[in-house]
Structures are given as structure tokens and as C-alpha cells.
């Protein structure tokens, strides 16, 4: 079991989660974060911290593809443990539907 970052993180990337995660298991892409499923200890601390409600337990239905995406990019992107300023237009993208298709970037973020 692990927690999973999903659609609404894309282009919001508030990063509040990285400050509270006890095991530093967030990895940063250009416009979203993912959780490394082998490092997450399922403590659930990050879930309520996300202003975009983009973090869920992988026991929730319909997250299989997100779990795969998290696992895949966690091994490609740099680790992030320190919160920075979210994107200036984060609020405008909060709640926009189906961001994966339109906006997801596979490029790595800057990391710590």
C-alpha cells in the first residue's frame, strides 16, 4: 500500500506535502510531483495537507494508472524535500478536469 499523487497535482504543484513527509518520498516533475511507492510508509500525513486534494490511498478505486505513473516517474525525477513557491497560475488550474492528457510533462523538475 502506498499513497498516490493524481491528476489535480498537474500544474498546481503546491508542494505542501514534501514538508510533512517523514520519509522524503516525493519526486519532482516539471509540473507535478509523484510518490515513490517503495519508499512511502503509508502514514497518510501528506493526504490532508494537499490544497488540491490530489493525494489518495492506492486502495481507492480507479488509481491503477496513477500508481503506475507514480512508480515510473519516481525513479526518473529528482527527490524534493523542500517546498518552493507554487506556480503563479496554480489556482487557475486547480480543479480543471483531465489535466493528464492536456498538460502532463514527463520532464524532470529541479528537485532540492
Amino acid at each position: 500500500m502506498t499513497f498516490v499523487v493524481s491528476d489535480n497535482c498537474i500544474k498546481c504543484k503546491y508542494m505542501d506535502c514534501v514538508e510533512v513527509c517523514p520519509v522524503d518520498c516525493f519526486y519532482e516533475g516539471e509540473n507535478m510531483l509523484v510518490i515513490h511507492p517503495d519508499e512511502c510508509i503509508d502514514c497518510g500525513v501528506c493526504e490532508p495537507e494537499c490544497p488540491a486534494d490530489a493525494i489518495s490511498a492506492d486502495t481507492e478505486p480507479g488509481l491503477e494508472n496513477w500508481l503506475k505513473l507514480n512508480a515510473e516517474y519516481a525513479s526518473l525525477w529528482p527527490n524534493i524535500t523542500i517546498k518552493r513557491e507554487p506556480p503563479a497560475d496554480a489556482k487557475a488550474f486547480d480543479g480543471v478536469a483531465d489535466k493528464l492528457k492536456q498538460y502532463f510533462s514527463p520532464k524532470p523538475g529541479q528537485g532540492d
Partner: protein
Amino acid sequence: MIVASGKLDHVSEEGIRQLVDMFYVKVRIDPELAPIFARAIPGDWQPHLTKMYAFWSSVMLTTGRYKGNPVAKHLAIPGVKPELFERWLALFDATCSELFDDATSDAFRVKAERIAESLKLALFYRPDRPWPQEPTP
């Protein structure tokens, strides 16, 4: 605040410190857990206790005080078996119930069980074997 039962009714840094101290007193005299912990922590226990105050503070109070890699730490300990996690949980839950009221100790138990399951998966899960595992003989 201490409620009528004499138990703590919320999580605080001080409550966590008491919980961790009381819990590891039990661990260090437990026939199953004591030998494993004695090998892993052969000297001064205070650094471990201080780390555990920070860990539970991070988990229960979202303070971000702990930063570490518990999966790697547990992988490095020889002799860890899945059923030891059950023993650990039983002692931890008993300690929580001694110190905190029901709702607060439930909150600790839920977190502890999830973290234990996740550590067990990380340590023992193999895709070609059934999960949950049968106890090791």
C-alpha cells in the same frame, strides 16, 4: 488535558515522549523483541528514543520533525520476521491504551498498523509468493 480516567485526551509532544519512553521499556524486556533491538541498538538508547519522538511527532502532529528512511533501516536489521511486527503492534497498542483515552489511542493504532503493513510489504513481499504470508516456522 487529562480526562477523568487520568488519561491524555489528545496528542502532544510531551504525550509522545511519554509514550515512546514507556513503550521501549516494554520492548527491552520483551522475550521476542528485546534480542532484535539489543542487536540493532547495542549502546546508548537515547538517540533512538529521540528519533522516535520526532517520528511520531511527524506522523501524529504533521510537524515534519523526522526525516529518514525507515524501510532501509529495517532492511539492515538481521532476524526481523513478519510476526515480530504483530508483537510490536500489540505492545505499542497496550502502551497507547495505558496513556491515552480510547479515541487518541485508536488514532495511534490506525497509523501504526498501516505503517507496519507497509514496512512488512517492503521487507517481505515477493511477487511470486502469497500475501499475507504464512508465519515463518
